[in-house]
């Protein structure tokens, strides 16, 4: 009997905290921002600054692959702002014509420190003896990789088509591949664990941002502001 009572007490203690998590107190407003994985560092900084400038507002950041984020919005996930790594993916969101490009990223070759495969340009990614990772053509970074190969007239010989940029980069950092095609900002975020080589001719992708619900408009404006530009530039993004 006492054991049953204890279990019930434990359950009663847990339930209010669970519901508190999902609703939040009315005094603090929360805005939810869905952002492409490559924005992890820069949006983290921006959200922090935005919260400090607007006491009582909490920015909840959700990072993921652009197509995954778009799918979440379409299935009704609560979100106030969405920022993706490609305009093509954004196009399927309702109201996408209001989206504004806030940054540009460039495709880059990432190699492990010391460049064990002696990779110098995109042409090297066609060498059969090298281990190469790229994104699958179904995701934005894979589509960009395909554009890069065709623009440079190179037949890429990838050994694996990864699900997203971070997976490609992880394989470079673990030295399991000699080269991977990722975004410039990703190599920068990897610090000393990867070395960046330029893709020539450059392949540029646009990053659009869209306010889905009005509470998010302030954050969107902040991303598009001069301060937003500066933070994004520090992370390796080009201005739109």
């Amino acid at each position, binding site marked *: 009997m006492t054991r049953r009572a204890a279990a019930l007490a434990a359950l009663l203690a847990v339930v209010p905290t669970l519901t508190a998590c999902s609703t939040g107190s009315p005094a603090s407003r929360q805005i939810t921002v869905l952002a492409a994985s490559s924005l992890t560092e820069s949006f983290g900084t921006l959200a922090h600054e935005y919260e400090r400038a607007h006491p009582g507002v909490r920015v909840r950041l959700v990072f993921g692959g652009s197509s995954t984020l778009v799918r979440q919005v379409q299935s009704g996930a609560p979100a106030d702002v969405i920022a993706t790594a490609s305009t093509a993916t954004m196009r399927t969101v309702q109201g996408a014509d209001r989206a504004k490009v806030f940054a540009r990223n460039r495709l880059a070759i990432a190699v492990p420190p010391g460049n064990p495969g002696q990779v110098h340009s995109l042409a090297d990614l066609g060498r059969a003896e090298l281990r190469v990772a790229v994104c699958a053509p179904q995701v934005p970074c894979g589509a960009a990789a395909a554009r890069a190969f065709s623009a440079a007239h190179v037949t890429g010989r990838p050994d694996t088509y990864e699900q997203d940029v971070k*997976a490609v980069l992880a394989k470079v950092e673990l030295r399991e591949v000699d080269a991977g095609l990722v975004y410039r900002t990703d190599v920068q975020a990897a610090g000393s664990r990867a070395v960046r080589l330029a893709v020539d001719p450059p392949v540029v992708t646009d990053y659009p941002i869209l306010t889905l619900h009005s509470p998010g408009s302030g954050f969107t404006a902040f991303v598009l502001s001069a301060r937003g530009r500066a933070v994004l530039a520090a992370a390796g993004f080009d201005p739109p």
Partner: protein
Amino acid sequence: MRRAPAALFVPAAIAAAFLVLPVVGLLIRAPWRGLPRLLGTAEVFDALRLSLATASLATVLSLLLGVPLAWVLARTALPGRWLLRALVTVPLVLPPVVGGVALLLVLGRNGVIGAPLGLSLPFTTAGVVVAEAFVAMPFLVITVEGSLRAADRRYEEAASTLGASRWMVFRRITVPMVRPGIVAGTVLCWSRALGEFGATITFAGSFPGVTRTMPLAVYLALETDPQAAVALSLVLLVVSVLVLAGLRDRWLFPR
């Protein structure tokens, strides 16, 4: 037939509905009319063939190595056996993606074992088999060990006193006695290997015909064409039901 008490029947009904309804939903929402177009491609065939081959190889590997391990855990007085049991079941609780990273760190090109041996398992079909076996083998080991513990050891002792060697006792007495456990473990192991995703994509990567198994193809299809993903899942579902039903008739319950 006895009537089940409501205290058991109601939660049992909820559990059954909870487990069955998502599959029913898959069947209801399946793009039946588009199936031939969605599935009649070489890539789907490649992924399915690869999945069946790698899951079966991983199961054979698990049987060859896992049954002896289960025997050691159940029947020997090895010091620190409890610790060994806890360690070999770690892959059960480890998120498979982490398992994949761990495999890379050990068996990868620059891994602890991979580098000195010159192994090159990642991005190969053999790598898929290794990843699946890593995740699936504990299911077999746990099941077989449970059966070995539950089995009546007096038969083995009687065989020994009658002069049978220890290997003969294992082969002729122990294995036949725990056969239901081995079969159940094999089925669990194969099913888990067939559905394996995280360790495979992390350790072996994803390349059509080489390392892209059905679960990887489903996840990738979800990026662009959710209908295709549902269709692919349906194929995986049908194939696994067919295989398990076939086993049931021929092997699981011979009489």
